């Protein structure tokens, strides 16, 4: 009984416990603790992500789902003085592929595009992969799409993730090669430049001026890029525009250049090699500046074919150089400097002072020859200039000090950049100090004799010579040549450039008159009769610069032909330099070109569209070669600088 009672009692105790479920209360309490713990942990985690890390994730979300593209600012136009637009922009449709957007669907998208553009899939793919290496965010797969291509792509854009077609302005040069050296060209910015310039608002896809005005006036022409932010979905499709900043177009440049003259100059020169520069003597404004051979600047945008590029980059004529700004031996055109020095030093007191030219000149143990082997007989200053008598100037050379010639040269702007462009050469005016420094040698008196006829170390550019003759033409006003007359901003405001008078060179009027008479006689009776234009005063000086090469291959190169002149109906209205590289004689080759140029300038004939006829046969061969016995230290051109 006892035992049983105990069991019952014990059982009922357990049952009571179960019925009361006290232990269950405890467990439920712990369940609640677990619930609140988990809720707290989760809430804390979301608080951390959504409040503390909020800005971090917003930034990530934006960089993932918003793409920023640059809207290129249209570059400024370049307009000639007579209002012809010679560099502008045209609207083109460009096909871009966003690298991130196309991701793993590259093949699919490229295949569809190859069908739409009717191109070979393989070559399109190859092009894409090549471009991808050099592009950062997107690849310009094809530029200048046709209308039908644009339409075909636009309607299928939903199925072409990462693809976009953009209307962009592309640089356009309507007159191509004639303006290549003057305007220069643009090409895509490279990596180093981008890193340097990105603070100035350049984007990776921007074009940058490479030469000529495009480079020098880059900051004016560039404009300010705009930006557009577009949403991109997970499949790479582009959607809504979130923000847009419009670009600001670059400023226009209005030039001093005369369009007809420029085209004429190029037509005259394009079958030859060389440069033509024309200046206005009243302010130094450049009326024309061409160099040949030339390159079509449009090709830098549309692309060269492999053959074209090889032809250009390996050409001996170096079409990239602006020969108007490169330096060459000036030959006899330099004789005016010798004459001016002699007049200033009082060595020539009247044009009647004469020298007898037997065709040669003995100096010390050496014999220097006149280009006219038969000799000129008795020559005074005016005749000496007109017939370019070497012996007359040798004689002056023996009486002058090289220092004086050099200082007069420098006074007239030789040996320094005329325009200040990066591709320009300063040239070389030799003197004692220079020779000591560069060649570690003393100056020989014989070298002064050689210098006096524009040979030897002296190097000048066609533009520098035009500047020199401009001073003679306008009576002593050394203007700095300039090419941009006005900068016109988008809002219509203009910045006018005033001509810069570098200095007024004091010259005795009588001396100036004698020199001018000599230059007139050059055309009237002397070496450049072929430059005469009826009814127009033309005065100038020919030059035939000897090119002696030390290398056997180029030994028999022709001489450089020069003709520097000014012309006008009463007062001089134009100064020009005609330079034909390895062209032959100045009188035979260069002077006729000047005549054609002046004919167009004075509206006697219309600008030629065809190449100028060869005038060589009509005009007797005139060779005013220096044939001195001393070896010319110049190798090809510019050798003095190289040493």
């Amino acid at each position, binding site marked *: 009984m006892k035992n049983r009672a105990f069991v019952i009692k014990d059982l009922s105790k357990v049952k009571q416990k179960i019925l009361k479920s006290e232990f269950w*209360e405890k467990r439920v309490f712990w369940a609640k603790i677990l619930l609140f713990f988990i809720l707290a942990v*989760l809430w804390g985690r979301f608080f951390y992500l959504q409040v503390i890390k909020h800005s971090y994730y917003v930034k990530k979300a934006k960089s993932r789902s918003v793409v920023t593209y640059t809207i290129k600012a249209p570059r400024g136009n370049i307009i000639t003085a007579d209002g012809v637009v010679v560099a502008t922009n045209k609207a083109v449709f460009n096909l871009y592929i966003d690298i991130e957007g196309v991701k793993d669907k590259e093949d699919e998208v490229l295949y569809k595009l190859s069908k739409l553009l009717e191109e070979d899939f393989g070559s399109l793919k190859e092009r894409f992969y090549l471009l991808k290496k050099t592009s950062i965010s997107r690849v310009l797969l094809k530029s200048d799409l046709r209308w039908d291509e644009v339409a075909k792509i636009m309607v299928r854009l939903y199925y072409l993730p990462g693809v976009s077609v953009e209307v962009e302005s592309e640089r356009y040069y309507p007159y191509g090669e004639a303006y290549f050296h003057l305007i220069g060209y643009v090409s895509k910015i490279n990596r180093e430049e981008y890193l340097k310039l990105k603070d100035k608002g350049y984007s990776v896809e921007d074009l940058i001026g490479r030469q000529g005005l495009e480079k020098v006036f880059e900051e004016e022409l560039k404009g300010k890029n705009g930006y557009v932010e577009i949403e991109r979905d997970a499949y790479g499709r582009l959607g809504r525009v979130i923000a847009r900043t419009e670009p600001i177009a670059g400023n226009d440049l209005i030039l001093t250049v005369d369009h007809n003259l420029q085209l004429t100059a190029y037509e005259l020169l394009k079958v030859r090699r060389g440069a033509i520069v024309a200046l206005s003597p009243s302010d130094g404004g450049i009326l024309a500046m061409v160099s040949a051979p030339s390159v079509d600047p449009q090709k830098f945008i549309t692309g060269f074919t492999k053959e074209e590029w090889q032809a250009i980059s390996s050409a001996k004529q170096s079409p990239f150089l602006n020969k108007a700004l490169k330096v060459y031996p000036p030959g006899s055109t330099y004789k005016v400097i010798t004459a001016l020095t002699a007049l200033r030093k009082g060595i020539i007191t009247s044009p009647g002072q004469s020298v007898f030219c037997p065709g040669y000149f003995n100096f010390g143990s050496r014999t220097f020859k006149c280009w006219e082997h038969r000799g000129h007989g008795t020559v005074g200053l005016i005749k000496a200039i007109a017939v370019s008598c070497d012996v007359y100037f040798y004689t002056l050379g023996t009486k002058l000090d090289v220092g004086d010639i050099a200082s007069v040269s420098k006074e007239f702007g030789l040996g320094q950049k005329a325009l200040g462009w990066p591709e320009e050469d300063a040239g070389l005016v030799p003197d004692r100090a220079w020779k000591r420094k560069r060649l570690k040698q003393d100056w020989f008196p014989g070298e002064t004799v050689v210098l006096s006829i524009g040979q030897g170390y002296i190097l000048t550019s066609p533009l520098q010579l035009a500047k020199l003759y401009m001073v003679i033409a306008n009576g002593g006003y050394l203007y700095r040549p300039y090419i941009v007359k006005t900068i016109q901003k988008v809002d219509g405001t203009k910045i006018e450039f005033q001509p810069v008078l570098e200095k007024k060179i004091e010259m005795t009027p009588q001396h100036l008159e004698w020199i001018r008479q000599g230059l007139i006689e050059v055309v009237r009776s002397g070496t450049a009769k072929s430059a005469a234009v009826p009814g127009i005063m033309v005065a100038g000086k020919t030059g035939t610069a000897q090119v002696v090469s030390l290398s056997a291959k180029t030994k028999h190169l022709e001489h450089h032909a020069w003709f520097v002149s000014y012309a006008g109906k009463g007062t001089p209205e134009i100064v020009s330099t005609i330079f034909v590289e390895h062209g032959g004689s100045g009188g035979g080759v260069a002077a006729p070109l000047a005549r054609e140029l002046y004919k167009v300038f004075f509206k006697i004939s219309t600008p030629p569209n065809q190449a100028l006829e060869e005038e060589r046969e009509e005009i007797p061969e005139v060779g005013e070669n220096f044939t001195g016995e001393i070896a010319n230290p110049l190798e090809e051109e510019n050798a003095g600088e190289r040493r």
Partner: protein
Amino acid sequence: MQVKEDNHKEAIKRNLKGFLVVLALFALGNIHQFFIAESLGFFIKNLLWHVLGLSIFFFLLFFTDYKKVSFRALWYAYWILNFVLFIMLIFGKRWLNLGFLSLQPSEFVKFILLWLISLYLSREPSEVIPPKKLLKIFGLIALPLILIMPADLDYAFIMGVMFFSWLLFIGIPKRIFILLLSGVLLFSFVFVPIAWQKLKPHQKGRIYGYLEPEKYAKTWGYQLNQSLIAIGSGGLTGQKFYKGWSTRLGYLPAKHTDLAFAVWAETWGLLGVSVFLALYGYLIYFGICVSQTTKDWFGKYLSLGVSLIFLWQLFFNLGGCSGLLPMTSIPLPFLSYGGSITILVYILLYLLFNVAIKKYFFK
């Protein structure tokens, strides 16, 4: 049985709050799906599931009694379910495609097991489950989980966590618990390194993606990374409808199902997250209170089990999408789209509310 008028009133009064919370979550989930849905059809499909679920809920709530279920019926259901799972295991499928709808039978394992075990244990309630019984129960649980495991490892694991934690509250003898714990620890120390080598690349990748979502943003961590961006960019008050970048621009994979909460967090921010956690948390709290106040043990076990299932479901889903836990493909009740899960949710709620209501008609 005597039913008084007062009891009706009392039953409604005491459970009204919990019921309103269910309705609030129902509305919230459908509104959410409405704004995510790309087509109206998708939203309507989801709404129909919810309406169907709610109808089942009401029908069973008023016309059935959880206590009147026969053991035999549950037992057969259990075996039929296992048979279906076995067939699916052979064909290597997770979804049972019936043509007009596809079901995920593994979801139904939860309530069958819950009901069956509760019934079994409540026959002789005790402070701790006797070892023999415990062994049987482990066997009951293990069978379907093993059948699920090859196709859906995460789900099997999470269900294991759910039932184990439930049994822990019901009462596992201390000695057995310690034995199990040390066994699990030993197992993991010995087998984890071996298992790691045996894991398939995609399984390893999920671990990598969990540990460093930003490093593997393009591969294994893609989902988690996008989910974190979506949640983080929601901020305090969210980006509102149709504004969120992640949702609208299709960066969130599984935005209707597993990552539905990331969308919620992006749209409504921490404010929305707090509201949801409060509502959902209250529902679980309500379930635990039901377990506390119910007089019969069958009800106690059942309602606690339902609460725990809801709790773990929340924890693994939210923990997964917020990078707290490795990401698992477990849906979140109410917010996630899906037929099976929606029906299951309402069946579980039926069990909970049935327990809550019936106690007033007991005496």
